[in-house]
């Protein structure tokens, strides 16, 4: 289980640091420095691939998952709830290009599984302030709240509790109805996503839309097969997401293939 730390390439780190300091990243590097107490270099070393702290094949991303090795659905939830590596790996992503077309008419918006809140912060900075955030990862939620206040916004966070218990579907009961729900790279991490999908569709206004990207694994993870990095954390689609969406009254408006593996970004409308 020991991780051999590869040497850090200073030139790569410098390029990466410049990328994170770009406008599209909304000061994520400064925010992480202020939140964690790390230097910029230390943050970059944790966010970049192929360092001891990074999330490449030899880094923490899969190692953290392998180390804690969740077995039951509750343990999966707890893994994502208590994990820390996504804080850094999600900093590598600016806001999702798919949200660029959303405007005031699409509010209220819910970003479900929102990570470090790049999308929600982008909405706020564009004046769309009826944007809500939901995420299991406690470290990411804490960072999001810290970050929003640092940028002068009061965050709207749906906490994962209902009636004094952890409940990822019940917690939506007290949330408002939404005109738009975003689920970027979420469902492939959930052992049984169907109850969550039902709860989310139930929260959509009639005519409202859901934009999702769910790169499920094609085959279950096999530790003997190399180069299956993503499938360790990505599950196979046990329910057939497309069929479930249609059965829940959602109509597919648009599907765009976004990578060589054929995964699609889909826009659905509630009929």
């Amino acid at each position: 289980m020991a991780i051999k730390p590869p040497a850090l390439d200073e030139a790569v780190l410098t390029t990466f640091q410049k990328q994170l300091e770009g406008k599209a990243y909304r000061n994520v590097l400064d925010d992480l420095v202020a939140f964690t107490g790390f230097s910029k270099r230390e943050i970059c070393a944790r966010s970049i691939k192929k360092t001891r702290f990074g999330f490449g094949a030899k880094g923490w991303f899969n190692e953290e998952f392998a180390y804690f090795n969740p077995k039951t659905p509750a343990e999966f939830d707890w893994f994502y709830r208590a994990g820390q590596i996504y804080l850094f790996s999600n900093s590598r992503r600016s806001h999702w290009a798919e949200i660029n077309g959303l405007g005031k008419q699409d509010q209220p918006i819910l970003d479900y599984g929102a990570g470090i809140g790049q999308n929600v912060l982008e909405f706020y900075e564009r004046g769309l302030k009826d944007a809500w955030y939901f995420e299991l990862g406690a470290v990411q939620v804490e960072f999001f709240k810290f970050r929003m206040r640092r940028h002068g916004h009061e965050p709207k966070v749906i906490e994962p509790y209902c009636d004094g218990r952890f409940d990822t579907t019940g917690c939506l009961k007290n949330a408002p109805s939404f005109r738009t729900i975003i689920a970027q790279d979420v469902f492939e991490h959930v052992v049984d996503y169907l109850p969550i999908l039902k709860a989310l569709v139930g929260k959509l206004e009639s005519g409202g839309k859901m934009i999702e990207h769910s790169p499920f694994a094609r085959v279950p993870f096999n530790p003997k097969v190399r180069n299956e990095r993503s499938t360790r954390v990505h599950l196979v689609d046990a329910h057939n997401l497309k069929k479930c969406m249609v059965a829940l009254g959602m109509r597919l408006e648009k599907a765009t293939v976004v990578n060589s593996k054929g995964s699609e970004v889909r826009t659905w409308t509630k009929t």
Partner: protein
Amino acid sequence: MDKNLKENPKDDLFSKLTRKYGDRDGKFLHKVVRSASYHQSVQDLVAFTGLSFDEVCERVLLKAGDHRHFVDEFKWDRPSSPNELNWFYRSQRGYLFGNASRPEWEALGVLGVTGEQHRVLDFGGGIGQNSLALAERGFSAHYFDISITQAEFVRFRAKIHAANILVVEPYYNGRFNYLDCLPGGYHAVLCQDVLEHIPRYPVVLEALAGKLLPGGLLVEYSPFNGKAQGKKMPRHSPVHLSEAVPLEKVMTGLGLQKTALAPYPSTAWRKGEPA
């Protein structure tokens, strides 16, 4: 410790736990679940984490050597600088369960009679056992811990137990700063098993002493590595640092005088009497 707690063989839970975990661990878990001094830590963890009762019990019983134990998590994480050490304590998950197996601190008795409206800081408060006890007794309880998950758990516990606890966030002027964030004006500061985890603990002590009111008490138990009240403490050696500067010397230098108030092995230090 709840001295009225009896091991009742007719208690279904007692039978279930001793059958499943063996006599020793089963009895211990029964005490954790039933005794008032544990403030329902296991039940609260079930509600907070979504894990089953058995999944939580299994984690509470972990010993060093299991990869999920905080000592093993520390070895896996391998923090090698003060920043990395801070981040380890902020982001680790093992202490949430490790701390559930500890009751409220016996040394709380030095704080006086129930109902006093005194402000007490539970510094490095873990899962909030002491803060819950303080709130129940009418103290103005301020909880502080840099652990994100434990602080979130204490917020959750305060809500479901309707306990009046202020959870102090570790930020000051938009930055992580766990010394300047503390409001101050404390009648007492508790440091149970905290200082031995901090490389520059004299700096932290200085800040805490500055937050104490004149005549206030700082109550601590600090089993530094290799030396805890004259005894060797090898059990937690990877996470417990050695005492680089003698604690007593630091305390005296800060104007804190040792008292005989706290029960062994804790120590209570009093800040110069009010004028």
